[in-house]
């Protein structure tokens, strides 16, 4: 390989000004270069876009009308020029060697399409004791094969396709299911690559009535697999 590959990291943000800076800093702190960071401001009115724009290269900020998390990520994908793609939620943080360590798996197995890893959750430090006591216990060092922490080859990503804009929850589950159906070769190494923040307002998952969307994602995946077998 002639030099190191360009990695595109993508963040979609909707009113995430409280934590966006930390997310961006965790990307800029990566041991790997070259990288580009594309932030899609998904119609925020809390100054999230200004936070992202204040950084300058290698951070780019694109503003769009509110379209949801999938639409924001998809917009970023359209702008991404990297050989590898990574996605980060605006309230989470990469570990500093995340990209470098994931890339090393591609080096040892060129047939790999995507590398996942483990996640560790943390309670957001801005929460008071009462708020903390109401949140569930954070998970520590758990495997999590999800787009939120994957590093995927550009061509492999497009083999699976964009994120489903019809879903509010289960977007990652749906993408992972389609990746498995497409036969992507993946690995979930035992390395913590992502720190996931638990706070009072985690990504859009506020309505218990959205739970059935997971069931619909699974049903759709079963249907596709059965059709493929038929």
């Amino acid at each position, binding site marked *: 390989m002639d030099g190191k590959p360009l990695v595109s990291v993508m963040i979609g943000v909707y009113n995430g000004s409280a934590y966006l800076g930390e997310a961006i800093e965790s990307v800029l702190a990566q041991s790997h270069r070259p990288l580009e960071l594309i932030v899609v401001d998904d119609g925020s009115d809390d100054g999230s876009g200004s936070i992202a724009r204040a950084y300058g290269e290698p951070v780019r900020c694109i503003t769009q009308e509110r379209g949801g998390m999938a639409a924001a990520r998809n917009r970023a994908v359209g702008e991404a020029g990297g050989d590898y793609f990574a996605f980060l939620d605006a309230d989470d943080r990469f570990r500093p060697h995340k990209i470098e360590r994931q890339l090393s798996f591609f080096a040892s197995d060129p047939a790999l399409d995507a590398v996942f890893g483990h996640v560790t959750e943390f309670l957001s430090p801005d929460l008071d004791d009462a708020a903390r006591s109401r949140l569930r216990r954070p998970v520590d060092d758990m495997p999590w094969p999800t787009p939120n922490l994957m590093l995927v080859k550009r061509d492999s990503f497009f083999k699976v396709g964009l994120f489903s804009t019809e879903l509010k929850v289960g977007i990652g589950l749906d993408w*992972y299911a389609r990746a*498995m159906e497409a036969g992507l070769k993946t690995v979930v190494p035992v390395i913590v690559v992502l720190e996931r923040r638990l706070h009072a307002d985690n990504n859009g998952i506020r309505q218990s009535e959205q*739970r059935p969307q*997971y069931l619909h994602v699974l049903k759709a995946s079963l249907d596709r697999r059965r059709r493929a077998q038929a």
Partner: protein
Amino acid sequence: MAERVCVSSKHAIAETIEGEAIIIHLGTGAYYSLRDAGADIWAGIEQAATRTEIVDWLQERYEGSREEMDAAALRVIEQLLGEGLVEEASGDGPRSQPLPAGSARKPFSAPILEKHTDMQDLILIDPVHEVEARGWPYAAADSGG
């Protein structure tokens, strides 16, 4: 075995979509499918119907002997109990409503409980579990921390 079982509200969420019951076990991240007569049995369990009632309904919807339907229903219920998706219901419970009968009776074949474990890691961490009215990531009231 109890006369009636009901869906484990602590461990299972489910929805019947296009005639297929999809069930997630929130504690393990496994998911399950029941189709055809299996989905009918699940519909009966969702109403905490007795096995006798469930078999009555199967008799209305499918061609086959009562014995084979009863054996099939018993087997599915035992499997669901074994997976922790349903639990024994006590007391009289709500009076269950019969399932709408199909327009024409179909040949009966013993339903199969499909179990899938390929998404466990995702389902366990995704906010699919522990979502209550206040929303994820609040602790479930009965999770014990």
